[in-house]
C-alpha cells in the first residue's frame, strides 16, 4: 500500500475507511477491478466517472449489498469485507441508495423510523428525528404524507434523512443528483455541504462532475471499473484526463 504521488496519504494509515484491491461483479460480468481508495475521518471524498464506470457497484460493495470477489475492506480498523449489510450499518456506515429507494407506501415519518431500526438508534429516535427535521424543515410539514407522493428533491431529503437516523460515522451517497431538476441539484449539494459542516464524513459517488468537485476535498476517477486518477479536487478540475474519461477525447 504505497503512497500515491497525487498528494494522497499512504493507504491504511489513520484512514477511516480503506478499500484495498477490491474486485466485484455480477455473475460473469466484472464491474470493479482492483479498486483501492481511502477516506479519512471528517473528509468529503468524491468518486466520479462516466456512466457504467462501476460507481454504484463500488457503493454496494462498501455497504455490504454486494459481496466483493476479492480484496479487503477495513473500517475504523475492523475488517468488514464479507460482513452482511445489516451489520455494516451497525458498524457505522449508512448508504443513501441510487434513485433514493424510498418506501413509497410508507409515510415520511415511517421511512425515517425505519432508518432508526438498529437498537442503538431506536433509543435515540426522538432526538435524531428532531435533528433531521431541523435539517429538513419541509419534511416536518409533510411527515404524515406518503413518501411516494413527494417531489424528487423532497424524496432525496427523506432518503438522506433516513440514512442519518442511524447516526452513521460515514455517509455514502450514491448519485444524489440523479433525476433531479438543475435547481434542485443545487439544493442537494448545499445540503451535502451542511452535512459536512455538522462533522460527518461523506463519500459521494456522482456523475455531475462540476458540482461534486466543488463540494469534496479529494476525488477518485473511476473508469470502466478501475481507478484512473485521484487527487485534490482543485487539481482534478484542471486535469484534461477527466474530460477525456467522460467524452472520450
Amino acid at each position, binding site marked *: 500500500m504505497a503512497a500515491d504521488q497525487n498528494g494522497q496519504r499512504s493507504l491504511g494509515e489513520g484512514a477511516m475507511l480503506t478499500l484495498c484491491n477490491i474486485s466485484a461483479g455480477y455473475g*460473469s*460480468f*466484472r464491474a470493479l*477491478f482492483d479498486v483501492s481508495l481511502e477516506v479519512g475521518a471528517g473528509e468529503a471524498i468524491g468518486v466520479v466517472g*462516466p*456512466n*457504467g464506470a462501476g460507481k454504484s457497484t463500488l457503493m454496494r460493495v462498501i455497504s455490504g449489498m454486494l459481496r466483493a470477489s476479492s480484496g479487503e475492506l477495513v473500517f475504523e480498523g475492523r475488517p468488514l469485507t464479507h460482513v452482511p449489510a445489516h451489520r455494516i450499518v451497525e458498524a457505522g456506515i449508512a448508504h443513501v441508495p441510487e434513485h433514493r429507494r424510498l418506501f413509497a407506501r410508507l409515510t415520511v415519518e415511517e421511512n425515517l423510523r425505519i432508518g432508526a431500526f438498529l437498537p442503538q438508534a431506536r433509543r435515540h429516535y426522538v432526538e435524531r428525528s428532531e435533528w433531521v427535521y431541523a435539517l429538513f424543515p419541509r419534511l416536518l410539514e409533510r411527515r404524515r404524507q406518503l413518501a411516494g407522493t413527494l417531489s424528487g428533491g423532497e424524496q432525496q431529503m427523506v432518503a438522506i434523512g433516513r440514512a442519518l437516523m442511524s447516526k452513521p460515522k460515514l455517509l455514502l451517497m450514491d448519485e444524489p*443528483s440523479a433525476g433531479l431538476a*438543475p*435547481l434542485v441539484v*443545487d439544493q442537494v*449539494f448545499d445540503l451535502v455541504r451542511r452535512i459536512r459542516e455538522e462533522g460527518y464524513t461523506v463519500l459521494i459517488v456522482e*456523475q*455531475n*462532475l*462540476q*458540482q*461534486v468537485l*466543488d463540494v469534496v476535498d479529494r476525488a477518485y476517477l473511476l473508469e*470502466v471499473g478501475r481507478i484512473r486518477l485521484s487527487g485534490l479536487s482543485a487539481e482534478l478540475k484542471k486535469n484534461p484526463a*477527466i*474530460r*477525456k*474519461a*467522460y*467524452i*472520450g*477525447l
Partner: protein
Amino acid sequence: MLEVSGLSKRFGHFPAVSAVSFTLRKGEILGLIGPNGSGKSTTFNLIAGAMRPSSGSIRFEGTEIGGLPAHRICRMGLARTFQIPRPFRRLSLMENVMLAANYGNSGTLAKSDAQRRAERALDMVGLPAADGIEGLGAAALKKLELARALATGPRLLLADESLGGLDHAEMEHAALMLETIRTKLGITIVWVEHIMGLLMRIVDRVIVLDHGEKIFEGLPEAAAKDARVTEIYLGHGRRG
C-alpha cells in the same frame, strides 16, 4: 444509405425521441452517443424495427422502413446486434449462426449454403466453429452476436453497445473488429455506445443526443470541444 427525418417517439406523454434527423453515407461508421436517457437506444430500436415511430420517416436505400417489422427490415439488408446477447442455449454455436444465415436471408437456403455463410461469419469474428455455447465468456458472446448479424448478409449493421461487459483488451479488440467489418466487408455501421474512449477514436462522425434531441452532429474532435456536449456529460455548474 440511411435517411432519418423528423423521427419522433413518444411513450405516453414522454418524448423519448424528438424530431431527430440525420443522413448516413455508404461505408461510414457513425457513432450515436448521449448520456443515460438521451434516447439513443430508442432511436436505435426505431431504425431496427423493434419499435414503431410516433412520427417521422426512416428511409433505407430509398425505401421507407419506419414501422416495418424487424424481420422484414433484416431481410432488406439491415442487421442489428443486441446489447445483452441471448443465444439459443440448446443449439450449438454453428446452429445459432446458421439460423441467422437462413432466416436473415430468404428463409429457404439450402443447409450447405447456410453452413458456408455461418462459417464465413464465424471466421470473420474469430470464433472457432467447433466451440459449444456453454462456458462462452462475455467477449465470445459478443462475437457470436456479431457473427449472427453478419451471417444475414447485411449492407448496414446496427451495433448495440458492443463494448459492454468486456475488459480493456477485449474492448479494443471489439472496437477494431467493427472497423475491420467496415473496411473489409464494406458494411456501413451505426454504433450506439456509452463507453466513449474507443468509439470516438474509431467512428468517422458522431451524433450526440440529449433528452431525445439531436444537439450535435459532426467530427468526434469537434464534439469533444463543443460546449453543449461538455455540459451534458460533465454536468452543469451551479445555476443558483
